[in-house]
């Protein structure tokens, strides 16, 4: 299988001096379903946002489909982003808009400014959006406002929006962190099945190690901005989990995340 994404020595230092990534390297092949695990503040979200350049890395190189994202012009960046679907922890839907309007936003990257500003989606886009909503079991909520949905439903709309992009790569930043266990299962099932059926590669950051083992074809463990585990879910031993969730001396999120390690190991 060919490499879809190549991340090489990526570092990210925020303006306040926080080093979120300290030289992350990995390659993602087409069709892979990679799950990133690690403590809060380990650099998972930063890494995902560097891939579609919502955040620019400080050093290193990210190559998506042969294009270096850091060197991409505005137009090239739009083209890269429209091929990378993103699912967010807090769904990032526009609450006042309907489900279908939110899903159709996934097509904006393919539209001219004029068409985008006046919501002139073509018939094919509209039909496709409805089909995607059917696939995630949200067809009955098409005309509901996003703020009338439950958390699980909102996340499925988020998945639909990303699917509307017709992406080659799906990034999901803790997609089930705000959901109950039942909704988490439904959302992960939807995401996994869609990616598998459509042959979409995915990088999903998760806190729940049991979900990671269940769905991933590959697990990447990050600690303090460095990859400390990269391999098959079957090989993820208890000691490897301990290593991923080990507290670091300069852990700034100590109080917030003191239960992370216990939770992960308990699983």
């Amino acid at each position, binding site marked *: 299988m060919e490499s879809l994404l190549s991340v090489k020595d990526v570092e990210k230092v925020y303006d306040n001096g926080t080093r979120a990534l300290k030289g992350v390297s990995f390659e993602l092949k087409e069709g892979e379903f990679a799950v990133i695990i690690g403590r809060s503040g380990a650099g998972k979200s930063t890494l995902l946002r560097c891939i*579609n350049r*919502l955040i620019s890395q400080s050093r290193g190189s990210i190559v998506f489909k042969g294009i270096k994202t850091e060197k991409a012009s505005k137009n090239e*960046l*739009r*083209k*890269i*982003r*429209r091929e*990378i*679907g*993103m699912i*967010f922890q*807090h*769904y*990032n*839907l*526009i*609450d*006042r*808009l309907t489900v279908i309007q939110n899903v159709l*936003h*996934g*097509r*904006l*990257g*393919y*539209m001219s*400014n004029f068409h*985008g*500003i006046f919501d002139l989606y073509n018939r094919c886009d509209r039909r496709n959006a409805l089909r995607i909503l059917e696939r995630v079991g949200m067809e009955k909520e098409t005309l509901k406002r996003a703020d009338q949905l439950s958390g699980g439903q909102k996340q499925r709309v988020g998945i639909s*929006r*990303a699917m509307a*992009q017709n992406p080659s790569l799906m990034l999901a930043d803790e997609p089930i962190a705000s959901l109950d266990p039942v909704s988490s299962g439904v959302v992960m099932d939807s995401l996994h099945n869609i990616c598998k059926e459509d042959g979409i590669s995915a990088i999903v950051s998760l806190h729940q190690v049991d979900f990671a083992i269940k769905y991933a074809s590959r697990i990447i463990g990050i600690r303090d901005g460095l990859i400390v585990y990269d391999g098959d879910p079957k090989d993820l031993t208890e000691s490897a989990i301990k290593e991923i969730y080990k507290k670091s001396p300069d852990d700034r999120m100590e109080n917030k995340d003191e239960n992370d390690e216990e939770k992960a190991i308990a699983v």
Partner: protein
Amino acid sequence: MQFTYIPLKKEKSLYTWTGVFLVLFTAIITGYVTQFDIREAVIVLPGILDFILVDFLPPALKAVPDFMTSLLDTLCMAIISTTTGAVISMFFALLCATPTTPNSIVKLVIRGFASCLRNIPGLAWAIIFVPAFGIGKTVGLLALTLGSLGSMIRFFTETIEEVDPGGIEAVRSVGGSYWQVLKSGVLPQCFPGIISWALYNLELNIRASTIIGMVGGGGIGFFIQFNIKLFRYEYATMAIIAVAVLVLLTESISKKIRERIM
């Protein structure tokens, strides 16, 4: 352990009394500087009451047909100036709100400009424009528009800055351009806030247009001023009541609109 909070209570009480003392002290000093004498106000009060009860009442119902056109002018002036002001303010607000500004220099310049505008009341603009344009609705329109620009830019900017950045991030992540981010990520989120502020500004402009009319801005204010000068106080009373009814009506309609768009 139960005495832990006693010093805090004492501290709080000390702060309260210091505050009360400072307010009273400031009131006495400013009263002295402005030579305000409460006794004088009490002495003239019966005269004022007599003047209002005898000269201003009862309101002259026959004045209604005379000022209906002026009242409509006032309403139209308030609507046009609010709409124009809102469109211009929205443009400036998008340029100077943190999530949508193209760069920090533009943001600083517009914020400074809005701040300057905010410090000049509509009445001052009317006084400036009367010599240039003469008495009439043009003065009222310009004064109301400029008078409301400063505050509307600020309100709109704050509304845009309060939108959920997640929506903006989502539109950026799908490959949306700057304009698409504005249209699909920012505007749907801040729309209720913007309309709400514009309606509030409309209420303010109806009130302000009455005052501005008195200094030459046209509309019902001019009618009130004209009749007071002719000692037809009961005509002025009727016009003031009409303005109050108009304001109440506008408030109730805008409240209903606000509830619907939320």
